[in-house]
């Protein structure tokens, strides 16, 4: 038994917009933007940093016991300033009530700094789920609109059979305001790129990297892959400064995903772990008002986890939109008129939610101990055999369902018309009418197989609240 990284995972939302589509839409004001290539990811209207983190965590924990003792959620875009965001994640994952939950914020380095702290454990470390997610909004027409993406990543740390060990770590703090976002604003304010490169990356990152290598007792030449969350050109410059080959740089996913803020270092790490071989040495860097660096070495246990984890499947499962106003509206950058039905008051009965919080956040239904029928929602009387007080809690969130009936409703309000919903059958008799997500019009059929994903169910815009629930979504390709 030794301490280290026990598993990893990632999630990239389905939606992409091509940079060409953005460039065309804003070319009247920024003709120079046209040279931008590739796509950026963006969260669907019903996704935020909590739901992205849940999906990355499910990817990380799939097939493993959920005996997590501590959940840490790193993000600069946590939806709640006061309500434990990691607590919502813990309930969605149905972790034990004794779990310790902690939100880590205020820095793009929030996740790598937590990892540096965790690296100090040699024994007695709690089983920790370290999550990083960001959904940074961008001002229409800004450089960030092209550069940023939305994603999440996860690491399970603790004692066991690690897939990777942390060999050394170091942090450097420098209050260099290369970019910032004040609490009361939506957008990042970014300074001149040349200054950030020369005075920031080129001077601060090498100090952290060298310190981490020294702590691990290795030379930089022994590092197989460098994970540096920045542009390809800055990373190439750093490779020169560090005197290592450009071929050692891990793809920053600029062409497929974009810069995912606090999630980006762990996203790139999970990308590297997806294809790494045992005995590889990785240097993971975090940057922002200083730098973190960690030397990570993979072990033979990695191979057993690689088939089902990491971002590659999510990067492949994309829905590309070319419609700039659709992108803006889904991220609420423009106020689209959805008519009177969008005015509905969506107050949440918090006492009703608290009573049924496991049912809602964990999609916990009941299995009748008399007739074995699974049902959602659970109740005191079995819907099949009528026996009372026989239902044992059981979640439907990890089950696959089959569409029994559906509609594409153009009358009902949804930020992404049509509103697709229908009856979904689950094993052992359960049936639910549910709101679907991530399906394009025409994609759902009677008989379609679906998986469940944790999403925003409704926004209460008047009281700045959001509710979460589970929705059927398309299966991922194996």
């Amino acid at each position, binding site marked *: 038994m030794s301490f280290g990284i026990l598993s990893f995972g990632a999630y990239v939302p389905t939606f992409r917009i091509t940079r060409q589509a953005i460039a065309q839409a804003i070319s009247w004001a920024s003709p120079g933007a046209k040279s931008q290539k590739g796509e950026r990811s963006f969260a669907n209207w019903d996704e935020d940093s909590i739901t992205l983190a849940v999906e990355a965590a499910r990817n990380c924990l799939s097939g493993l016991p959920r005996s997590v003792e501590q959940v840490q959620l790193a993000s600069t875009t946590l939806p709640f300033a006061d309500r434990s965001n990691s607590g919502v994640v813990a309930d969605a994952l149905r972790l034990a009530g004794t779990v310790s939950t902690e939100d880590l914020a205020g820095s793009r380095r929030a996740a790598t700094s937590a990892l540096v702290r965790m690296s100090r454990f040699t024994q007695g470390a709690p089983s920790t789920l370290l999550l990083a997610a960001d959904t940074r909004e961008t001002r229409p027409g800004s450089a960030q609109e092209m550069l940023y993406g939305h994603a999440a990543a996860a690491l399970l740390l603790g004692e066991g059979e690690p897939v990777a060990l942390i060999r050394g770590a170091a942090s450097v703090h420098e209050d260099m305001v290369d970019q910032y976002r004040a609490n009361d604003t939506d957008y990042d304010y970014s300074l001149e790129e040349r200054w950030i490169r020369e005075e920031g990356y080129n001077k601060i990152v090498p100090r952290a990297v060298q310190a981490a290598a020294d702590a691990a007792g290795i030379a930089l030449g022994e590092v197989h892959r460098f994970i540096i969350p920045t542009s390809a050109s800055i990373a190439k410059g750093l490779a020169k400064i560090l005197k290592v080959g450009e071929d050692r740089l891990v793809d920053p996913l600029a062409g497929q995903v974009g810069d995912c803020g606090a999630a980006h270092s762990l996203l790139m790490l999970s990308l590297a772990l997806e294809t790494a071989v045992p005995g590889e040495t990785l240097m993971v860097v975090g940057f922002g008002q200083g730098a973190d660096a960690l030397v990570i070495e993979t072990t033979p246990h990695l191979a057993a986890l690689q088939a089902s984890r990491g971002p590659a499947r999510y990067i492949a499962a994309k829905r590309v939109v070319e419609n700039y106003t659709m992108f803006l509206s889904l991220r609420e950058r423009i106020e689209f008129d959805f008519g*009177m*039905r969008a*005015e*509905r*008051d*969506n*107050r*949440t*009965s918090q006492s*009703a*939610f608290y*009573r*049924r919080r496991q*049912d*809602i956040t964990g999609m916990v239904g009941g299995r009748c101990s008399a007739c074995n*029928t699974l*049902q*959602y*929602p659970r*109740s005191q009387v079995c*819907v*099949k055999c009528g026996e009372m007080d026989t239902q044992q809690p059981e979640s439907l969130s990890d089950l696959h369902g089959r569409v*029994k*009936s*559906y*509609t*594409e*409703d*153009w*009358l*009902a*309000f*949804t930020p992404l018309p*049509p*509103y697709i*919903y*229908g*009856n979904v*059958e*689950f094993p052992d*008799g*359960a*049936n*639910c*009418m*549910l*709101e679907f997500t991530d399906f394009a019009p025409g994609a759902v059929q*009677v*008989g379609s197989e679906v998986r469940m994903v944790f999403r925003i*169910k*409704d926004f209460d815009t008047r009281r700045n609240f959001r*509710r979460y*629930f*589970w929705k059927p979504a398309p299966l991922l390709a194996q």
Partner: protein
Amino acid sequence: MAKGIKDKVAIIGMGCSRFGERWDCGPEELILEAFKEALADAGIAREEIEMAWLGLFYQEQSAGKSALPLALSLRLPNIPVTRVENMCATGTEALRGAVYAVAAGACDIALAVGVEKLKDTGYAGLPERTKGTFDDLWLPNATAPGAFAQLASAYAAKHKIPMEDLKRAMAHVSVKSHDNGVLNPKAHLRKRITEEEALKASTVAYPLGLLDCCGVSDGAACAIVTTVEKAREMGFTDVVTVKAMQLAPSNGYEMSNTGWDGSYLLTTRVAAQKAYQEAGITNPREEISMMEVHDCFSVTELVVMEDLGVSPEGGASKDILDGVFDRDGKVPCQVDGGLKCFGHPIGATGLRMAYEMYLQLLGRAGDRQISNPTIGLTHNLGGHPFRNVASVSLFGLHAT
């Protein structure tokens, strides 16, 4: 052993307002319009009414809670008034309360009124309500067309009918009801449509187009009932009596269990069987002269033909296209235009259906009169296919 309600209660007067976008009327005026007709029809004084039932669905957005909207509108002399609500079966529930009261001997003459004032809400379609219960935490924010559209997707899949073919049968349902609505001066929508127009109408909720959906209307309807014995004393000879009134609400099975395949209405099947038993009907296709069913959407009418046992399983499309339910067909359905064209003021709808049966049975249906009807069926479906309240009632002639 209970004997049921058959031939115990006579309807001695009925009235129905013109349905539609009644910008000229509030709920009080709508109630009065129906009530005056019924009172004159029964030939009684307002003071002879001893008890009343009010059916109203959207309380705050329509006429208000409690007995008061009716008691105040009619200035009733402090008699007992009960407000009932059972979604789209609300009007039928008001009638059931009045019928049971006179049958029980609690009073001699009772009044049932159903009303809905929908066009003051500002919505095209039914209004949204404020959210706040447990169901709102997880159920989709479904609309009525979206909920009923799923009947079509599940039905087509179950019976392996191409959606284009099913849509054609659904279009015939709407074309037929529009044809009938033209003949009804009180109907909301009085314009013929073609099958092609129905098929080409813009999609509301796949596969339902605009012309697959019923009207959202203002309106009121009412009935005055008494016992058959009292009717005889009052000098009525041939009267319309209640042959059966049955109600079946869901218990959650459809929504929570895979045993229901989404293609039919379980509660309608239960209510129909019980109603046939109460009325002594053994072969509905042969014995029922005419029907007013809950055609909130064309596909609802289609599957209901099977749920009522009038069409064989999977055979409704053929019956519809063969004209079985046309006004000159074997079992005319929605002779007054139905929810589709007469309109659907929710609280009034069940009583509006009974009104048509009453007129037809007494031979007073004017241009749309069918020949020699003996038994009429009304059917309501409140809620959505996966969770609803169904009612099936039968009416017929009875010699006092």
